[in-house]
């Protein structure tokens, strides 16, 4: 079963964009509701989330001020923002359109429906308090899409490219979310925890948001049995062996997907497997202190390694002859 390079690239990117739409929807929803009860300053509340997607500069340029309304519009519906939910869905759909003959019609239809329903929204969603429904619809669109893929897409090379894109995006997202939280100026004593109970409550709420943003809150509670401490949360999101959105789990599955692609062309691109296996090995053996204290590897380094795998995939499979 052959696969056109262009279609492999489409599949990889549709995996990334659908995953991105889902991640942004989840983060936005969690942050929006947290902001309603937030004791801190509104702009500080949104800054870490904006940092994930290119910072607040373009938003300020477009809306003039950073507040809850501009931040949500920017992250949810604004097609000017290349990583908004609407942009991600529109790009996913663009890739799916190039794949219409390749993917099951049901997969195409679900992307197309989400596009028609979610990519032409304007601020009125906010006026009718509809952000929650909007974010849920976007998250469900992605979940439905991957669910249909899981149930109907043949497990050939195309599947592995879709899966690679999804997992790479997820790994990237998890690291960025953690990094944004840790870099946040509100977290000077992240590792120890402030003594002031008000500050501690705020910090705890922010870390709960981090967990919820990865749909990890319930899983973390079951696994950790302890309070919400930053080291525990970071350790869970980085290293947990069983939670499907942890960095380690994503990296392991990314390796598996790439190994399956390699089966179709044995040994053609050994570098991809080496890079991806190296990432897995670090996550299997590193401790939380290595990353947060020794910074070996640091979160930015992990991010670079993840994207090095992405670049290697691109060179090997999408840019040939």
């Amino acid at each position, binding site marked *: 079963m*052959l696969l*056109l*390079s*262009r279609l*492999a690239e489409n599949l990889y990117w549709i995996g990334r964009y659908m995953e991105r739409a889902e991640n942004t929807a989840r983060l936005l929803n969690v942050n929006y509701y947290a902001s309603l009860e937030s004791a801190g300053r509104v702009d500080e509340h949104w800054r870490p989330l904006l940092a994930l997607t290119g910072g607040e500069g373009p938003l300020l340029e477009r809306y003039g001020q950073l507040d809850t309304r501009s931040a949500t519009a920017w992250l949810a519906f604004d097609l000017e923002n290349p990583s908004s939910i609407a942009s991600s869905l529109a790009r996913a759909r663009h890739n799916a359109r190039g794949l219409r*003959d390749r993917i099951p019609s049901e997969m*195409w239809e679900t992307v*197309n429906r989400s596009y028609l329903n979610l990519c*032409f929204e304007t601020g009125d969603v906010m006026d009718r308090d509809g952000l929650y429904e909007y974010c849920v619809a976007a998250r469900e669109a992605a979940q439905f899409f991957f669910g249909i893929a899981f149930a109907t897409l043949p497990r050939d090379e195309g599947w592995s490219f879709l899966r690679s894109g999804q997992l790479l995006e997820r790994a990237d997202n998890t690291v960025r979310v953690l990094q944004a939280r840790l870099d946040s100026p509100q977290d000077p004593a992240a590792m120890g925890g402030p003594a002031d109970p008000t500050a501690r409550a705020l910090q705890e709420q922010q870390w709960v948001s981090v967990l919820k943003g990865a749909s990890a809150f319930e899983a973390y509670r079951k696994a950790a049995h302890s309070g919400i401490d930053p080291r525990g949360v970071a350790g869970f999101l980085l290293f947990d062996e069983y939670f499907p959105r942890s960095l380690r789990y994503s990296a392991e599955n990314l390796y598996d997907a790439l190994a399956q692609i390699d089966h179709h062309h044995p040994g053609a691109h050994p570098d991809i497997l080496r890079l991806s296996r190296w990432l897995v090995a670090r996550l299997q053996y590193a401790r939380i202190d290595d990353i947060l204290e020794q910074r070996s590897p640091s979160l930015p380094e992990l991010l670079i390694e993840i994207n090095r795998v992405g670049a290697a995939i691109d060179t090997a499979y999408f840019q040939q002859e």
Partner: protein
Amino acid sequence: MKYDPGTRFFDEMFRGDGQVRPHYQGVEAYIQRLGTAEFERRRHQLDAAFRNQGITFTVYGDAMGTERTFPFDPVPRIIPAGEWSHIEAGLKQRVKALNAFLTDIYSGAQILMDGVIPSELVFTSAHFRREVHGVTPPGGVFIHVVGTDLIRNEQGEYLVLEDNLRSPSGVSYLLANRQAMTRIYPGMFEGQRVRPVQQYATALLANLQAVSPKPNGTVVVLTPGMYNSAYFEHAFLAQQMGVELVEGRDLFVDAGRVWMRTTGGRRQVDVIYRRIDDDFLDPLAFRRDSSLGVAGLMEVYRQGRVAIANAVGTGVADDKAVYAYVPDMIRYYLNEEPLLNNVPTYLGWNPDHLEFMLANAADLVFKGVGEAGGYGMLIGPAATQEDINAYLKKVRLEPREFIAQPVVGLSRHPTLYADSGTFEGSHIDLRPYVLFGQDVTIVPGGLTRVALTRGSLVVNSSQGGGSKDTWVLEDDDTAHAQEALRAARPPQSQSQSQSQSQSQSQGSGWQSQSQVQGMLSSSGDGPARSYQQELEKEQLSHDQLGEAPETGTWGAEQPGENR
């Protein structure tokens, strides 16, 4: 069912006395039973289904994305078995003659030496490709897929308006329409014995595989890309056939073969079902600025190492001036009388015709001979005197580039109008799809296009045209077969006068034929005719299904009598 068929045009469903024609009785009873409100409600479901499935054509400059669904009317157009077998025989005959013509033209050109068709007309056609002279395509097949536009005149006779021999589009709508209809109105089909159409993709694949230079060759569909207005169709056909949908950038030529780029390296390609015009196929042979094609493809084609469907250079045979000679081709190559007549056509190339055309412009429809997409037309009865004068100036300068035809009154069909909640008559045409190879295969029916805008006579999708499901019935009881056939076949005398006129095309022309009333439609070669994407954007709003805007009835006087 409340409906006024009128008397001016041939009505497909009702006779002049207001009685439902026998082959429509089942559908009429079904609609009565369902009630107009429910019938209309289900139509909305159908629209939503088309929208979600993305069964669309591309429009630019539209806020709601760039795609629209093709409007659809759920009252099916029904063709009785006897009538269909007449159409089928006529189309087979015509396509055989056209393929023989192309074979001849690109080799010895015997028909020209015998003086049946003026060689000047052929060699001056913009779509004649001297680059492929002497090249016999695999299996001797030039026109693997043909979309012939048929209309019915006021008497109900089927006439050929146009042959589309390059890459006719629309067949995906035919298939999608049927699928949607059976889902939304299953009861309508009960007991009707409607012939199936979904075998098209299988037949197309077999037809393409049959011309592969090597056994079990790899077939691909070549599309200009997702911005092409017919992209849905390209993807749909590739999916239904289970072959790759490729763009020019996925292919390359090396070592005398065509390859596609895959994640596992190169893979040889043997048959290309291209939905790109000749001009854009190979920048080394044709337009050098084309980025849609494959550099070096033509050389591989000349070596016989890749099959291209339809073959390169077929456009010479659907040139509108050459079209006028198709009945003569049928006589010449097959030694048969044409079963389906042409619409009478005046050639600017012929000085006598030209004189008539210039004198009667206000009553005629003018078309550019190589044009598609509705460019270069003049609808005399609808035009102002300035328009006519400006147009005739062009005609005088380059008479070979123009033809003119009388306006023909297309048949009408009951169609549901949502705003009035009633059925009204709308003009329709029919584009059957013919697969030509070892055998000739025609999917029963075709795409029926309908002018949905009230009062409009334009079936073109850019002008508010839509489509209908088209049924061909398995068999007829003798009563309707007889009745239908009387209308569908050419009246004996008319057939003769036409053939005389045809054979005397150097002579004074057609005035006895030009009973003008109604509309004439013209259709180009599909959105699949390739444009580079930028070019396309300008074009697409006019060229949804790749047809010319089609023109309506103005109750014009009969031009022939006025000279």
